[in-house]
């Protein structure tokens, strides 16, 4: 991968809009790893798609629905056991990795993509800001080199 596509920009374009660099591709886009800025001072616009707060809201709503169904169908004890396990698990995940809630902070120091913006269907003066995940992914892909054969 790193041998075929050695440019980090290519990887950002590919992640943001796969069909802009590889026509006919069926890879889903990863626009949620980026933020678009159209303001002249480089301020970030609203982030596309889901954010962490919405994700947790969804989880909470689904959890309440599931618990309610469980309570109706099977009674309180099993429902409480499941809620407890879920709470412990969710707490453990929050402590272990807070990347999801830290996305806006990380994006401020993200890498800015300016070239080839119009090919991605964005306004000419816009800036594309790659988040930490997109950056880490591009770096990983660039590191994939064909091994040198041993003699």
């Amino acid at each position, binding site marked *: 991968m790193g041998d075929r596509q050695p440019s980090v920009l290519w990887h950002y374009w590919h992640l943001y809009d796969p069909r802009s660099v590889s026509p006919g591709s069926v890879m889903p886009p990863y626009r949620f790893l980026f933020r678009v800025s159209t303001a002249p001072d480089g301020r970030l616009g609203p982030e*596309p798609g*889901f954010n962490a707060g919405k994700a947790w809201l969804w989880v909470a709503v689904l959890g309440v629905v599931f618990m309610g169904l469980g309570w109706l169908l099977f009674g309180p004890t*099993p429902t409480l056991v499941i809620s407890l396990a879920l709470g412990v698990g969710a707490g453990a995940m929050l402590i272990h990795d807070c990347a999801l809630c830290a996305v806006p902070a990380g994006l401020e120091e993200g890498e800015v993509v300016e070239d080839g913006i119009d090919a991605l269907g964005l306004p000419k003066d816009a800036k594309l800001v790659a988040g930490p995940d997109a950056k880490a992914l591009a770096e990983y892909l660039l590191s994939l080199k064909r091994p040198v054969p041993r003699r």
Partner: protein
Amino acid sequence: MKIPVGIPVFVAAAGTDPRFARLVHRWLFSGVFWLLLGSAVGLIEAYRHVDPEFLADSALLSYGRLRPLHTMSMLFGFASMTLLALCLYVVPKCSRITMDEIELRSSNLALWLWNAGVVGGSVALLIGQLHGGREYREYPIWAMGLIAAAVLVLGWVFYRMIVRRQTKGIYIACWFILAACGWIAVVAVMGYLPFFKRGMADTIVQGFYMHNAVGMWFTPLVVGITYYSLPKLLNKPIYSYALGVLGIFTHLLFYTLIGTHHYMFTAVPDWLENTALIFSVAMMVPVFASAGNFLLTMKGEKVAIQQSYSLPFLLVGVIGYILASAQGTYQSLRVVQDGLHLTHDTGGHSHVAMYCFVSFLLWGSIYGLVPRITGREPPVRLVGAHFWLAFAGGMIMVVSLCLGGAEQGAVSVRGEPFMDGVRVVKPYMVWRVVGGCLMAVAHLISAVAIYAMRPGALLDIFGTSPTSSTPPVPEPEGRA
């Protein structure tokens, strides 16, 4: 719409402990819930191969998070829970005992531990907490720990029931079920041990884990259940008990070593690849021992199969067992794998194995056995619709994936550009969505049919309690 069929099952179910019937049906219905979730997620994923911009702006529903959610809810939600529901039915029946208080309570605890594990694991996958990109072990370790605890509790329950059996020998179904509980413990621990997660060891353990999660858990469980349900539904003995014994011991001998055949042409040592290859061919012995045994038991029972709504599922499942295993063996040969590996053909193979083999045997046993303890039969037309939709949908999906994969492989063997392979499979991806839709509708219908089999009210009146400490249930005056 009530259609009178066959034996009145509420007679067969009389005397069943209602708590036992409720326990089995809860395990069953939990599995069905995860089946519906997994089908919805699978449909989204399949449609993304046609329109990659579908729901593309959501991190929560991105491809990499939904894919493990689909496989894990199908494997550890649907297949495992429904299989264990039937095991909880088969083991006491084969041992000619009824579950006592402590076994009922332990199995109920295991049910909620298992559900908590799958719920927690699914939420973790959705918010991006994977256990690395390791196929079929993406749940974080705490979610898998809950499931492992449930397996330990259930394994102990099965062991306890078999120990206090009222029969002289242990029937072959119990051998398979107890063995699977022990084998999955080894496989899951290997899959989650931290010091195997570096470099080549991770790859080799990945092959071991993902092949044996299927080969040492789902296969022995479902084959064991079929060793009970098929003779029971045909009302005749199994063709050969000795073939079953041959099956289980060759299964133990040959299946364990074949995981590495997923990693041909990699840095895995050649001797390990060759061992895996030889055992992949030897795997045919347990497959034909069990599948041949089932087919020979079914021989001459054409009328019974035509008239039953559960036996057609079993027939398709047994043929699916042979096809899935034969396909696995020929795919492991280097010359075939060179073209077919890393194409859609692998997805086709996994759907033959988990759908046409495991799920069909499961559904046949569910519809055939569970009414005998709950006292309620499913509506026959719903079961018929389920069978034909699932059969047609499964066939469309499997054939389109295998053919598409073969075309894709031909492109890569000819050395043509990668994008040509993507273009070639596009029509097959549309057919996969069509098949997936039929399957999802079949699963909705099966959910209704299985809900209709919930334990009947008659059980509470005629059911008896198994232990002497608690009095029998009948209380006609309180029920008015």
